[in-house]
């Protein structure tokens, strides 16, 4: 039986190596321990990483390790090429519509944006930020688009409910 310290250390290793956020239930199942114990170990790991170069984040329904923001320039300078390209304004708007209105058809997106959005939808599909989640029961049975877990990861969010509330902007328009 693993001690809480050992579980914490194993979790640290898992998060360090995992290419995607890891769920507490998956770790608990793998270690054959109670999920609440893994949750406690995760909090310990989080506390232990305070003041270190890495931090433990809750993203896309799981947990992952990332470098602290304050050191990003040093890391970019050391490695080179770590900067990622930003999404275009068109892609962000399209992604916002899909995030808040999902599942949504291309037609509905274009109606909201007022412009042809085929290229931006294709680009978001390629990036894995959105997916085809079904077809609308309407003439032509158009594809419905929804966001993916990678969308949450991309923005550093845990769940869709963490998105900025859309209602906030009602008062402005």
């Amino acid at each position, binding site marked *: 039986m693993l001690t809480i310290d050992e579980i914490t250390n194993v979790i640290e290793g898992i998060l*360090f190596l995992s*290419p*995607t956020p890891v769920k507490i239930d998956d770790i608990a199942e793998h270690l054959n321990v109670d999920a609440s114990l893994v949750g406690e170990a995760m909090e310990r790991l989080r506390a232990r990483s305070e003041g270190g170069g890495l931090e433990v*984040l809750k993203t896309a329904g799981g947990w*992952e*390790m*990332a*470098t*602290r*923001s304050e050191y*990003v320039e040093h*890391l970019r300078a*050391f*490695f*080179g*090429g*770590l*900067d*990622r*390209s*930003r*999404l*275009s*304004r*068109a*892609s*962000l*708007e399209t*992604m*916002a*519509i899909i*995030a*808040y209105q999902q599942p949504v058809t291309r037609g509905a997106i*274009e*109606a*909201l*944006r*007022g*412009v*042809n*959005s*085929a*290229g*931006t939808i*294709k*680009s978001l*599909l*390629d*990036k*894995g930020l959105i997916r085809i989640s079904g077809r609308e029961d309407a003439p032509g049975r158009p594809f419905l688009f929804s966001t993916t877990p990678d969308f949450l990861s*991309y*923005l*550093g*969010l845990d769940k869709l409910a963490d*998105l*900025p509330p*859309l209602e906030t*902007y009602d008062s*402005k*328009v």
Partner: protein
Amino acid sequence: MKILSALKLKLAGFVGRLEELVSAVKTHVMDILDVRLGDAARQLADAARTGGHDTMRFTPFLSLARLMFIKSRNLLPGQDQFEDTDLEAEEVQPEEEPTEVRERLKKQQHRFQEVALRLRVLEETNATKLRSRRTRSEGLPEFIDEISFLEQATPFDLMQTMIQLLRMKPEERLYRVRVDDAKLLSMRISEVFDFLLARRGEPALYSEIVSAEARREEKALSFLAVLFLLNQGRITAEQSAPYADIEIRVRQAEGGAG
């Protein structure tokens, strides 16, 4: 050849000869993005095999290649994938709406434009938290290895398919889009990108990436991988003089934005 020319393709939303399909696409009667080219290729290949024909010599395959070219052009990411572009560059919907509807839509558009700015802040904040996987091939599109999914394929899948078509022997099945038995283009792209990242901003020579000893297929694979990364804006390539070796390096993002 006549057999193939007379072949009626049976696709979702279309039944007819390949020439008719090409014509429908060229005249915009059909959207090329709705055409399942993988199904068309399979039907042509089956017909060619059944008839015992040498597929390399058939004009229908050239027609199919033309359709693939049109589709690849349609699927190519726009410039806006890498940097901000004016929305004016996009095609404005021609439909006229009543004033009320237009006003409501305008408000909704404004609302989503505003929230997109908030998402930009989240995007930039999160980009300062680096994950180990992001030192590798983050963001590169995943490739589809089955020709049956060709309707969703990227231009580079189509290039792979073209290579497959050119290399295809009558006895071979068409459905695998492997360039060789061991390696997929997506794997080679990751390898090349990781190799360049390891240089930490220093250039690598093209000859280092594509060794002279490599087999022809491997050279083609590496060449396509370099082309793909150039197309994605991930790397830059410079040649100081004609016939000189090409210097390739990972592109630094402009403006330091995450």
